[in-house]
């Protein structure tokens, strides 16, 4: 994995150095039919969490987890004979994570393969923008693979914008067709029968999990300092929605893997307002209402206050409040009745309140940064997250944009 990171970094640095050469500014990019690099992004992050409600061990035990993620994307564009702009975007992401609780799927090993894993997720997308007719259409394909999970995604989108570009209405449709290897906790891979232990027929092979979503959005300029957007998502999932290696301990001290319905319908609706309050201070707000047919209702409220220290440098403190009710199928360790049809002790589905706060530093200059003409943006973001269940997490991310 380190080799992959090293190669990715060297690849990125070689591109960076080639951009270090001074080039002629091209003001005719939109009309050019030649494919040209429009934007390159490199995002690297480190995430760590700890808590004491691991679902792998039935709602008790360590939730310690770390994740190192690196994502690289490049967008290229060209005009066509009708002066429409075609953009092509390739993204490749690598995650390397280690999870103490996943290591307890099979605690008889000193450090099993489940203790750490890598995820690789490339995607490709295309968009066409027609400024004369005022619309954008696009489509994308994605793949994600890790040891026990494989995901294929497809999406299409359409947006219509007004002549003065003060209003945009968007529609997108997407689907993920996933496949999940049924890895059960070690003690549940066999069943006790009067004639002796036999292999558990459910513990093996792969099961599908499919997700479909439709999204409608509206973005509106309200005045020269204020703009807003609203978004409604409809999401439907079907297939293997329970995690096969998460244990549930019952009141009678027996154990099984969690069981959840094989469908889930989610309805989130969000509204965002961005206001340039003074020449230096912005106020960015977001509110989301969420409900689903598993019994979860949630509210999210966010505020971010970017302060421009200079026209190029801004510092943004932010805070996010979140609260959710428990799923109908959740109960803590040893509080489930074995007779129930569905059960889980996953605290991500419990009732809780969480707080997220942090700081974002952003340096943006169209004339280049550190003498590199194409280096457009440097951004550093730190998050601290805590849940009233005891889970605490920290994340730091660095994003670099070349234009």
């Amino acid at each position, binding site marked *: 994995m380190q080799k992959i990171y090293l190669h990715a970094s060297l690849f990125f640095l070689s591109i960076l150095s080639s951009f270090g050469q001074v080039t002629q500014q091209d003001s005719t990019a939109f009309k050019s039919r030649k494919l040209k690099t429009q934007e390159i992004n490199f995002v690297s992050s480190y995430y760590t969490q700890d808590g004491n409600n691991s679902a792998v061990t039935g709602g008790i035990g360590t939730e310690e987890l770390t994740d190192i993620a690196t994502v690289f994307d490049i967008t290229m564009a060209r005009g066509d004979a009708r002066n429409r702009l075609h953009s092509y975007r390739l993204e490749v992401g690598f995650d390397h994570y280690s999870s103490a609780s996943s290591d307890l799927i099979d605690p008889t090993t000193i450090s099993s393969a489940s203790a750490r894993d890598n995820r690789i997720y490339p995607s490709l997308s295309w968009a066409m923008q027609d400024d004369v007719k005022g619309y954008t259409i696009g489509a994308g394909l994605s793949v994600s693979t890790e040891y026990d999970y494989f995901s294929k995604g497809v999406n299409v989108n359409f947006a219509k914008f007004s002549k003065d570009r003060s209003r945009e209405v968007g529609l997108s449709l997407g689907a993920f067709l996933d496949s999940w290897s049924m890895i059960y906790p070690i003690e549940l891979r066999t069943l006790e029968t009067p004639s002796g232990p036999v292999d558990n027929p459910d513990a093996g092979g792969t099961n599908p999990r499919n997700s479909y979503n439709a999204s409608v959005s509206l973005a509106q300029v309200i005045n020269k300092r204020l703009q807003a957007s609203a978004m409604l998502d409809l999401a439907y999932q079907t297939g293997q929605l329970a995690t096969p290696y998460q244990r549930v301990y019952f009141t009678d001290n027996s154990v099984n893997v969690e069981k959840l319905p094989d469908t889930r319908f989610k309805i989130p609706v969000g*509204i965002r307002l961005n206001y340039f309050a003074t020449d230096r201070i912005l106020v960015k707000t977001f509110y989301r209402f969420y409900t689903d047919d598993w019994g979860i209702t949630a509210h999210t409220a966010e505020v971010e206050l970017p302060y421009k220290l200079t026209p190029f440098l801004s510092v943004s403190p932010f805070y996010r409040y979140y609260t959710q009710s428990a799923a109908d199928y959740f109960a803590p360790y040893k509080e489930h009745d074995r007779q129930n049809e569905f059960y889980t002790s996953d605290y*991500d589905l419990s009732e809780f309140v969480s707080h997220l706060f942090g700081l*974002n530093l952003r340096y943006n200059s169209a004339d280049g940064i550190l003498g590199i003409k194409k280096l457009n943006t440097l951004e550093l973001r730190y*998050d601290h997250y805590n849940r009233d269940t005891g889970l605490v997490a920290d994340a730091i*991310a660095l994003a670099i944009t070349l234009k």
Partner: protein
Amino acid sequence: MNNNTRLFARLLLLFSAGSLFSCQTVQEYNKMYLNDAEMVLSARKVQKTELNFLLYREGASGANGGKTGGGCGCN
């Protein structure tokens, strides 16, 4: 629902409704604030990790530029 969240939601909805009814046409030469990089309404690249871990650690998802499905989120 927490009282403060309810108040925040109501104020935001009220402000949004009021604002939408008073939309103004903004000329190109007057879009200095709207075109500022901080004013984008979509999630920024640097927020990718944040959106991902919130998706996996919380029951709610979507309507914020992040995913609503796909992937197991099982760690």
